[in-house]
């Protein structure tokens, strides 16, 4: 094999040597292609695997940990929640609509492949600054793509997050999360077994789209990347809807051995992984694969990433049952090969063998790198926060409104109104009100989910950022009244071959692992997306956590809104905030500096326990996490869009009252483990006593009511805005950038 062909496949000299050892001969071009995608970063996790081992993956509720198509946790009543988050960053930059749409399609397939009925989608999106028209084009396309796919297939998109930072300008992040519910004893697995069992291909025909998608996701972008469009696949949600229904129906027949979707690296990855998991071989004839284009080579067929395709292994003798179900849905299941006992992945084109690879070695001997790490040079300076040159705001109400209108904070209704968030009639908390919550029909329970990350925190302190991401997602779930029971993560970073990036990655994983252990939330799977760089400029390191929680009684679900006048407002947690890495610094001073406030995991755990038990005992009427924008923004968010109830609160004098930024810090400073709740007077003392028992500070700070939002400090009103002003700023902050296409 000539060197330029090997180079074009992204294999290093060492990796090629290893390939030669495994095969004992020169590879065919098809074999080279297969090794290249299976050993790409995207499929093999060669840079990250070593670190991912540090994540806690076990717990009493874990039914399926990492390694399958998705993780699963026990939610009671003999049911499991099956969920995963995945990135589709690179395709979404190249072609936003299809990139995002196929991301949704891929994660849905991962869930129903496990035998679970998908019931909820969420997404975590990050773009460059909205002032840039290119960003607006990306946002418009990505949102439309998610809507186009999710709405059509009939799975509600019930929540998520959208953030804007210049660091994502050339590299938007599109992370999509799906959750399904399955009977615990009926999970399907992606494995093959039983020599002689037939291997079926079902779904869309194979075309040349997406060839080398996995390799694309494993390289940096440069100015020519926009020309990579043919490597992005095109989604067909109608086909996937048919596949979903047909696959769930065929699983009920008990005629299946295993099933796997063809995602990244298509037929290659699905045949290899199914065989490796079952420790068997698979032999297929590519000439039998339904093809959309003429003249496709075995190489192209094996590497195509055409969407909406599944690989199934059926029980021999039960073929008719399987075929019948697919016929009902006007799908044609095609037998393309069979399971063999020799442990080899053998690909034929008619009679000619075009690839013959020991399956386990392909899967298990994938390269594993312990890449060097170095603390990045930028950190020293970036962590110093010196406000000497900054002017303290003179008009706090103005700053308050500016923050409410910052796109990161402002209402995302322009986005989520494009998503069908009510289909399946399970959505008990509408988007924008806190965690996404869906009830589980046939039980009294509901499930709550939140996807959260904060790239700026991680940029300033990757380990702390990792801890904070876990805590925030779990806290959001607890604010809905749910006990966090499992998590999935999507780790978005730059080029791992750069020691500074690898250091960020290792640190963030350590932070996530520590927080998950302390909060007893196992990670049951996820996704790593590396090489998020354009022209050598990396994104902020951005781990995104998706946390799932369970509420035993769906009628106890809480949202952020103050539901009535005359309620007491209680701040749970230490009132002090910090400006390091805050949204205030970005909006008011254009700075990303300082260190995010440190997380006390014991406190966090106790706080979440207070929230869950208070919801269960119906002690509180609403709960909202203090996140970007700090206490003042949180308070306003408890009132706007639907609440219609104002608030008047009184804060204690800040400790360093003579500091020019003391008030700013009290109002807009950020810190974890703080939640604003509302409580009826009759329940107040019980709540306070309960918090005290668990050593969680709890301060009665004011009352709901009126049509204004007023904050006093030490008896003096420091900021007072009308509810209508707040509402206007918050509702318009994102939408105003899209007025030309406003929905």
């Amino acid at each position: 094999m000539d060197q330029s062909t090997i180079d074009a496949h992204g294999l290093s000299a060492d990796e090629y040597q290893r390939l030669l050892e495994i095969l004992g001969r020169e590879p065919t071009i098809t074999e080279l292609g297969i090794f290249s995608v299976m050993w790409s970063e995207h499929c093999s996790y060669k840079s990250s695997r070593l670190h991912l081992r540090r994540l806690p993956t076990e717990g009493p509720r874990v039914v399926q940990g990492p390694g399958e198509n998705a993780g699963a946790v026990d939610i009671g009543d003999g049911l499991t929640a099956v969920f995963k988050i995945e990135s589709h960053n690179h395709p979404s930059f190249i072609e936003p609509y299809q990139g995002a749409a196929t991301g949704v399609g891929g994660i849905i397939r991962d869930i129903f492949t496990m035998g679970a009925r998908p019931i909820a989608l969420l997404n975590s999106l990050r773009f460059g600054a909205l002032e840039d028209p290119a960003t607006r084009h990306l946002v418009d396309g990505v949102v439309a793509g998610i809507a186009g796919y999710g709405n059509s297939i009939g799975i509600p998109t019930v929540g998520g997050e959208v953030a804007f930072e210049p660091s994502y300008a050339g590299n938007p992040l599109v992370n999509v999360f799906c959750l399904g519910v399955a009977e615990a004893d009926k999970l399907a697995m992606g494995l093959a077994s039983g020599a002689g069992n037939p291997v079926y291909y079902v779904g869309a025909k194979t075309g040349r789209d997406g060839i080398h998608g996995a390799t694309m996701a494993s390289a940096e972008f440069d100015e020519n990347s926009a020309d990579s469009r043919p490597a992005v696949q095109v989604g067909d949600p109608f086909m996937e809807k048919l596949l979903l229904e047909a696959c769930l129906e065929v699983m009920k027949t008990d005629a299946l051995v295993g099933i796997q979707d063809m995602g990244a690296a298509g037929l290659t990855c699905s045949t290899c992984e199914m065989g490796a998991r079952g420790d068997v071989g698979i032999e297929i004839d590519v000439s039998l694969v339904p093809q959309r284009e003429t003249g496709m080579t075995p190489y192209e067929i094996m590497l195509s990433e055409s969407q909406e395709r599944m690989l199934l292994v059926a029980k021999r003798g039960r073929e008719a049952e399987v075929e019948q179900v697919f016929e009902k849905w006007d799908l044609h299941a095609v037998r393309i090969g069979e399971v063999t006992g020799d442990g080899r992945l053998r690909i034929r084109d008619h009679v000619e063998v075009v690839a013959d690879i020991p399956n386990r070695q392909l899967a298990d001997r994938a390269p594993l790198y312990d890449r060097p790490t170095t603390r990045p040079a930028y950190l020293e300076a970036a962590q110093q926060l010196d406000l000497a040159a900054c002017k303290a705001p003179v008009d706090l109400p103005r700053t308050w409104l500016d923050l409410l209108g910052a796109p990161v904070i402002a209402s995302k209704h322009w986005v989520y109104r494009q998503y069908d968030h009510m289909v399946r009639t399970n959505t008990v908390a509408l988007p924008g009100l806190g965690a996404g919550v869906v009830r589980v029909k046939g039980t009294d329970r509901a499930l709550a989910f939140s996807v959260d990350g904060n790239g700026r925190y991680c940029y300033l302190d990757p380990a702390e950022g990792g801890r904070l991401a876990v805590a925030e997602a779990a806290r959001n779930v607890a604010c809905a009244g749910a006990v966090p029971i499992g998590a999935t993560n999507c780790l978005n970073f730059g080029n791992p071959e750069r020691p500074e990036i690898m250091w960020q990655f290792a640190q963030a994983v350590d932070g996530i692992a520590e927080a998950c252990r302390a909060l007893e939330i196992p990670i049951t799977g996820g996704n790593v997306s590396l090489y998020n760089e354009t022209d050598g400029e990396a994104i902020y390191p951005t781990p995104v956590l998706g946390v799932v929680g369970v509420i035993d009684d769906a009628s106890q679900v809480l949202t952020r809104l103050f539901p009535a006048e005359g309620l007491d407002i209680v701040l749970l947690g230490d009132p002090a905030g910090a400006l390091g890495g805050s949204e205030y610094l970005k909006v008011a001073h254009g700075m990303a500096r300082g260190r995010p406030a440190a997380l006390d995991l014991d406190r966090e755990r106790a706080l979440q326990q207070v929230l869950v038990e208070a919801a269960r005992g119906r002690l509180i009427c609403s709960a909202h996490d203090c996140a970007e924008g700090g206490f003042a923004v949180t308070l306003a968010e408890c009132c706007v869009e639907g609440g219609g109830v104002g608030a008047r609160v009184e804060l204690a004098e800040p400790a360093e009252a003579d500091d020019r930024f003391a008030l700013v810090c009290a109002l807009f400073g950020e810190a974890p483990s703080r939640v604003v709740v509302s409580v009826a007077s009759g329940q107040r003392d019980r709540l306070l006593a309960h918090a005290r028992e668990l050593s969680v500070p709890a301060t009665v700070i004011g009352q709901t009511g009126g049509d204004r939002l007023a904050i006093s400090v030490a008896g003096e009103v420091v900021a007072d805005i009308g509810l209508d002003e707040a509402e206007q700023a918050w509702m318009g902050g994102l939408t105003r950038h899209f007025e030309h296409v406003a929905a």
Partner: protein
Amino acid sequence: MKFAVIEFPGSNCDHDAYHATKHVLGQEAEFIWHKDTDLAGADVVILPGGFSYGDYLRTGAIARFSPVMTRVREFADAGGPVIGICNGFQVLLEAGLLEGALLRNRRLKFLCQHVHVRVEQTDTPFTCGGAEGQVLKLPIAHGEGNYHAGPETIAALEANRQVIFRYCSPDGVTTEAANPNGSHASIAGVCNAGRNVVGLMPHPERACESALGSVDGLVVLESVVSALAAKGAA
């Protein structure tokens, strides 16, 4: 009383209609596959929402050719109550069981939100339990719900009182601001000349339980239960 919920490939509110009629109303309900050629003795037919055939070509344009549609037409011709919700409304229009067409929403985006609609007529099996002028809070979720028809058709529909629901403000006033998709004359739902076939863009089946934010959809679904009960008694 038995509801038939027609399932086309790509229907995705079929389970919601089934849940609302079977588990909330406590009536019998049965899925009818689009290739089936009988309605299993149903008393009411629901064409549910979704993206039948992916909405490729045109919303509802392919579904009208499904074998079951022949039976639905016969059922409607015989006076049986038929309701098309969202995509089901689009199918009824394509099938010629109702008049008019649904265009892309005014601002071209898919829209999912609660809206208010006013009950315009109460002499249909799906509104007889409501009051004229009653305001219902119902969800919409569509990209093509912008009702349109030629001036003669509109005039005839108005003259024959075939406009059944209009988008309105919470206090019942039809305004441009309360019209989410640009529908002509704020029309959200219409019926046929025989008044037994009703189509509407909002989703009553999504508004039958307080946990979901509104129970106003019950007005529509309970109407048909009482209409048929009264007919049975008479």
